[in-house]
């Protein structure tokens, strides 16, 4: 539905501008709709795996690469602080914003902090590694765990 596309864009753009998950009333105001219609659209977008909702059906847990809840993967860009769902999404936030920034995270094995400067063309040379436990075929079995 056209209105679902507008809701999806409004959600992502709210995250991009604020670093925070929007409330349904925020999106209703952006798209000129009402909260009930927005929550209905959330449900359809969730079914398409475009959003991951909390159990209340109206709070956004994930609008990848953005996280609606605090995580260990923090991205700073242009004075805005974002939470990412995972290591992949941490770089994904800056890819989506198309802005330089810094990824703050940690080595899961040692706890050593990661402070990775990322330009619009990506990070500079780095020896850090990306590890994914769950095979691609199982990612959506439990996307929050993945």
């Amino acid at each position, binding site marked *: 539905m056209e209105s679902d596309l507008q809701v999806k864009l409004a959600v*992502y753009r709210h995250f991009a501008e604020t670093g925070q998950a929007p409330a349904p009333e925020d999106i209703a105001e952006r798209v000129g709709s009402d909260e009930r219609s927005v929550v209905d659209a959330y449900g359809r977008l969730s079914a398409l795996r475009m959003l991951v909702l909390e159990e209340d059906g109206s709070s956004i847990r994930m609008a990848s*690469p953005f996280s609606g809840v605090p995580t260990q993967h923090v991205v700073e860009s242009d004075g805005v602080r974002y939470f990412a769902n995972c290591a992949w*999404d941490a*770089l994904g936030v800056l890819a989506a914003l198309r802005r330089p920034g810094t990824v703050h995270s940690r080595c899961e*094995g040692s706890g050593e902090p*990661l402070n990775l400067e990322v330009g619009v063309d*990506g*990070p500079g040379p780095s020896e850090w590694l*990306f590890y994914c436990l769950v095979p691609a*075929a199982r990612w959506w079995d439990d996307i929050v765990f993945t």
Partner: protein
Amino acid sequence: MLFFRSEELVRKWCETHGHPMRPLAGMDQLWALATTWYSTRLQENSRRPQPDEMREIFAGFGLDGDFWDPRSDSFG
């Protein structure tokens, strides 16, 4: 999906937690994945890779094999 400082730290972490070792990716490969998935996310024409094309995309970035194939049945 996590960051690690070295392959040795990945191995120790996997042993400690009883997890299998998996293919690792470098930051250049991770950036390639990030831009492929998310560079149009804020635009109306946003499009994410579909399952039937993901294996080829991963392979193009040097990430080969069933682990990166969403249609693989190799992992039960």
